């Protein structure tokens, strides 16, 4: 089947199998920042924003994402113009192997949109769907705090 997808602000007409997940469709069309770590909704590496809400793209049928706004980590920033979350993660050492990072960035973005000044406990709960094996999460939490701080100041 064919569907029109709005990904990172651009519209794409994509042909796909009706059983494909959004993850498959995104990766096969070059959005390789969306990572496949488990394909069962348990690791969060494939997290994207779907109409503003964080979802595991492996748990979404592409057919149900047609016409919706999809944002990936690369939709938030790029190497030369990173989003404050991406910048903060890199700065504090929240990125080790980096495979899980785009997913954490998306979950963090979702949190900070809804709660610009989260407590440590709120940060941890907001990241309950993301696994990381490298960092022990310590620097990731630090990165979220730093990003929150900078985003607040930017808005002022």
């Amino acid at each position, binding site marked *: *089947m064919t569907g029109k997808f709005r990904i990172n602000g651009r519209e794409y007409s994509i042909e796909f199998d*009706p*059983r494909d*997940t959004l993850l498959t469709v995104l990766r096969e069309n070059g959005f390789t920042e969306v990572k496949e770590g488990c394909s*069962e*909704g*348990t690791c*969060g590496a494939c*997290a994207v924003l*779907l109409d503003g*809400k*964080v*979802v*595991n793209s*492996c*748990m*979404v*049928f592409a*057919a*149900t994402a047609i016409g919706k706004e999809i944002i990936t980590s690369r939709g938030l920033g790029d190497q030369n113009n990173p989003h404050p979350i991406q910048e903060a993660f890199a700065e504090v050492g929240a990125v080790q192997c980096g495979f899980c990072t785009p997913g954490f960035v998306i*979950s963090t973005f*979702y949190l900070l949109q809804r709660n610009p000044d989260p407590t440590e406990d709120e940060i941890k*709960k*907001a*990241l*309950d*769907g993301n696994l990381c094996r490298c960092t022990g999460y310590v620097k990731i939490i630090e990165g979220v705090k730093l990003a929150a701080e900078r985003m607040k100041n930017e808005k002022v």
Partner: protein
Amino acid sequence: MEEFRWYYPNSIEEAVGLLELQGVVPHGGGTGIIRGKLDRYKGLISLEGLGLDYIKEVDGVVEIGATATYHDVIEFCGAVCGECILVKSLSRAASTPLRNRITIGGSVAYFPIWSDLMGPLIALDATVSILGKNEGEYPVQELARNRSLKSHSLIKSLKFKRFNGFTYYYRAARTHFDYGSFNITMLASFDDGVFSDVRFVLVGSKAKFQRLAEIENGLIGRAPSDVDVPGLIGELYNSIEFHNTRIGSAEYTKSVALVEIERAIYASFKAMEGEK
């Protein structure tokens, strides 16, 4: 490979009509279907265009449309009543990205044994509106027991009376993001130092879900000082059984359940104390 297709009905009538097709089932959030074997289905009906993602409260009765997500319920109920039982239980279910996807209708349809929705709904005496072949309004337990009710039928919504009293939720799990092994829901109202209403549900035992009448009867009409808690727990010993669970053997799980039931009771005592 056989053709697999999506249906996007624009009205409930149209959706109900599609239920006649063989091998075609409704799709809410998809989190259950996507992990199963897709070969079983010839098609999926997207419920998105049906406007079933509503949540409303009219005269103390909360109605939740089938495609409202866990996240939607937590937001709505959290804003209305703060500490209500569904906020407590659904906040513990799955993970943030999954709660944005799991729908109430899908959960009611599949009702896995580790569901964090089941206990509260039973305690709330919730009912489920069904459209299609078995159109009607059913107590949630009946739907959970009788799976055939769901065939060629569409879950439209859930209804329950808002509960304003003491709420308690416990979930036995290995980690925060885990399938629960069992869970306990307790709702209680106090009146002048005695229990006026108690609803106590255990989910995950061999009975899958059970209201613990022993506890309810042992508390209602009594003040905490008149309750023989060890006696009540002792009574339960023979009425709850478990299979082996993720946290451990059947026997061990039962021991934990009894401890946590006791803790729930004491928590309610403490709450009553606090109210005074």
